[in-house]
């Protein structure tokens, strides 16, 4: 209850004296009108009185006077009400303002009544920008999985079943690619899936995730494109055998006829829905954000189609989403995924002096990776700010260098801590709780720990060599100059580690986390184990080294299926023991591959071509670099633009070329 009261701190929401007066005036008017409404009856009775009755005459005169007064009062009342109700939605936006009468809807119609259903282009949604888009993966992702605010993807039982099916039969749709779509949208870009244990007793989104497996389906009822993003309004429906369907909030929401959902107008008007901000990347829908929204005042009907007024499309929280989108200076072709510096962090074990997040700057993964790879010692670059001036993009942040001997060590409970030495000798503590999230959070005030900051310049998407090192006080001054609020507290984003020596950093490396949870890693803590599934691992060739050219069985080497073949990357891979995972998460092991070259657009051998979905999921190696309990090893990562052009292969241990 205290929490509820805390949430409902509305001290600054108070009626003004004018509002109080207005409401009281309304009472007076209503009472007066109610009183007058009784008098015509008396007048009617008076009509039946004998006209010569003086008493009756007086009454008639009185009634006439009262009726006139009532009419005057009524006119005022209705004028006030009409003025309020006909106020345009937004001043200056009257051209497209639509009243309820114009909509053909009846606001007095209760949801679920047998009003004429409005035919909607409910599903599938017409693709909104170039190319044919398939929304089935997106809808499946919504139905089976949930990306929590902590960045963990939860999967319901139906999703697990589907995953198992897809694993056993690669012709079956697998949710692994669905999950990729979701996790790509998370802040750190990697997949950490947890079973939905405990979901039953939860509410909110998680309850909806359960509802999906009970029969609800997400239906896209409207969409809008903004830049490279699409905003989709999704209403969940539960269809009965008789064609009627319900929503989470309306027991009788409409009828499903000829493959089209026919919503009763008032249901949509008073329905809550979710708005998804997505973007297709390399053919996959990627969910970037999600918010709950109220459809009232947003959904309009015109010519049997649902229509969304631009100015009404976004309401409070969605406006915030749009602001974030518009803020970004990162061009989509620079990198398919961008770092959104976390606005929240896991609060379970936060010390009191935890750095307060709040940075909204977006820095692309590509930029961070370039900074790290251009340096001989940087392990992590924590962006603090980014801005563009005279065509040059400046990235300002803290470079954290690797320092021998500062490994993760057990802390309280399962929280581990690593103390980093920054490039200027300051110490920054990072905390990580593997049981709650793979997102680290920061401790200590950066302004105390960091005395120097680095500034990198970016031109045409490439981080230029060299950097400018400044005092952190200079950074604050710089922030003031560009109009930002200088803050003593900064936060960072997910670290991107180089491979120089990651011993002891297993839990912190995003790509290792991902691989640890890959399906089919027999005997390891993999995705299936995480989800409690018991599915046989795929057949492998054993553990002895074996040249790739000797592997001829198509049952072992699963050719990657997908829509992209590397076209601009050549990697000289040396001394590789590798695991190959295809685009659907199925795994084939190829051991003992030594020294071969993957060239642009080539089918390397045995029909093996490489596709990727933003990451190269296809090649992992351990090469004697076993990382803790995760024997799947490290992974190459290919950074690609939205058109599928590989920009960079991330892994400094291997030679790569563009």
């Amino acid at each position, binding site marked *: 209850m205290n929490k509820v009261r805390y949430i409902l701190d509305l001290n600054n929401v108070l009626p003004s004296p004018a509002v109080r007066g207005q409401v009281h005036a309304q009472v007076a008017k209503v009472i007066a009108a109610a009183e007058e409404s009784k008098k015509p009856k008396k007048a009617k009775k008076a009509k039946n009185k004998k006209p010569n009755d003086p008493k009756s005459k007086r009454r008639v005169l009185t009634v006439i006077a009262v009726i006139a007064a009532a009419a005057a009062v009524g006119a005022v009342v209705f004028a006030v009400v009409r003025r309020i109700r006909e106020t345009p939605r937004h001043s200056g936006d009257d051209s497209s303002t639509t009243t309820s009468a114009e909509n053909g809807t009846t606001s007095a119609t209760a949801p679920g009544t047998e009003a004429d259903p409005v035919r909607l282009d409910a599903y599938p949604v017409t693709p909104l920008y170039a190319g044919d888009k398939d929304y089935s993966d997106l809808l499946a992702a919504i139905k089976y999985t949930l990306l929590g605010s902590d960045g963990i993807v939860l999967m319901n039982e139906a999703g697990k079943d589907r995953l198992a099916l897809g694993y056993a039969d690669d012709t079956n749709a697998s949710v692994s690619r669905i999950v990729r779509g979701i996790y790509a949208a998370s802040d750190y870009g990697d997949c950490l899936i947890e079973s939905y244990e405990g979901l039953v007793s939860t509410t909110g989104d998680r309850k909806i995730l359960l509802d999906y497996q009970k029969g609800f389906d997400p239906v896209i009822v409207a969409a809008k494109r903004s830049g490279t993003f699409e905003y989709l309004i999704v209403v969940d429906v539960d269809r009965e055998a008789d064609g009627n369907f319900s929503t989470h909030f309306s027991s009788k929401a409409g009828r499903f006829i000829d493959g089209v959902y026919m919503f009763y107008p008032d249901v949509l008007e008073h329905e*809550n829905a979710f708005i998804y901000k997505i973007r297709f990347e390399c053919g996959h829908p990627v969910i970037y954000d999600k918010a709950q929204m109220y459809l009232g005042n947003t959904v309009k009907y015109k010519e049997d189609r649902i229509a969304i007024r631009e100015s009404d499309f976004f309401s409070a929280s969605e406006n915030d989403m749009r602001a974030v989108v518009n803020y970004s200076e990162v061009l989509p072709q620079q990198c398919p995924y961008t770092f959104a510096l976390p606005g929240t962090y896991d609060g379970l074990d936060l010390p009191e002096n935890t750095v307060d997040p709040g940075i909204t700057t977006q820095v692309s993964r590509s930029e961070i990776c370039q900074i790290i790879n251009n340096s001989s010692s940087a392990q992590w670059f924590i962006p603090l700010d980014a801005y563009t001036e005279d065509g040059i993009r400046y990235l300002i942040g803290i470079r954290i260098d690797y320092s021998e001997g500062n490994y993760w060590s057990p802390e309280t409970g399962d929280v581990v801590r690593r103390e980093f030495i920054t490039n200027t000798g300051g110490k920054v503590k990072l905390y990580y709780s593997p049981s709650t999230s793979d997102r680290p959070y920061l401790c200590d005030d950066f302004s105390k720990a960091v005395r120097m900051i680095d500034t990198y310049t970016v031109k045409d998407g490439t981080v230029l060599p060299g950097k400018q090192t400044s005092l952190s006080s200079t950074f604050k001054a710089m922030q003031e100059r560009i109009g930002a609020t200088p803050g003593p507290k900064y936060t960072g984003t997910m670290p991107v580690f180089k491979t120089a020596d990651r011993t002891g950093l297993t839990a912190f490396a995003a790509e290792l986390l991902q691989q640890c949870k890959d399906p089919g890693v027999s005997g390891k803590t993999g995705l299936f184990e995480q989800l409690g599934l018991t599915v046989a691992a795929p057949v492998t060739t054993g553990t002895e080294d074996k040249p790739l050219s000797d592997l001829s069985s198509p049952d072992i080497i699963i050719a990657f299926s997908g829509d992209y073949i590397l076209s601009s990357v050549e990697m000289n891979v040396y001394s590789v023991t590798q695991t190959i995972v295809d685009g659907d998460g199925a795994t084939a092991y190829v051991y003992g591959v030594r020294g071969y070259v993957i060239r642009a657009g080539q089918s390397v051998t045995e029909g093996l071509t490489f596709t990727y979905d933003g990451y190269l999921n296809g090649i992992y190696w351990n090469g004697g670099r076993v990382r803790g309990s995760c024997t799947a090893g490290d992974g190459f990562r290919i950074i690609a633009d939205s058109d599928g052009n590989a920009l960079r292969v991330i892994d400094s241990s291997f030679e790569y070329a563009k």
Partner: protein
Amino acid sequence: MSKDVKMNKEEVSASLDRYTEDAYKLAFILTLSEEGAVSVMEDAVEEMTVKGGWGGADEKTSFFALICKHAKKCRIPPMTAEELTEKYGKKSDDFYALIAQPKAERARLHMICYEDMSEEDAAKAAGK
């Protein structure tokens, strides 16, 4: 004006004085606009008065339930995030957490807090 009507008006005014602040808050968090809150309150007062709902033991519950009812029908658009921020100041993220809730949930939370209703009664009054 008859004595009965006069007394009724006094009762209504007294009740309004008691409930105006919370009623406005409820109407505001449901409509997310000042204009909508006033409109909803006027509609609720009108129906309450016409139906003679004032003066009963459950007048408060009835009044707030009517606010929920009319808020559902309210067609005045909510203020934008910018307007809300400008007008009320982003004093607390909790306020934004609240307005991010579905309308019925906002109503239920309000009633639990400010009307001291049980969760069940609040849900019922909020139309959940």
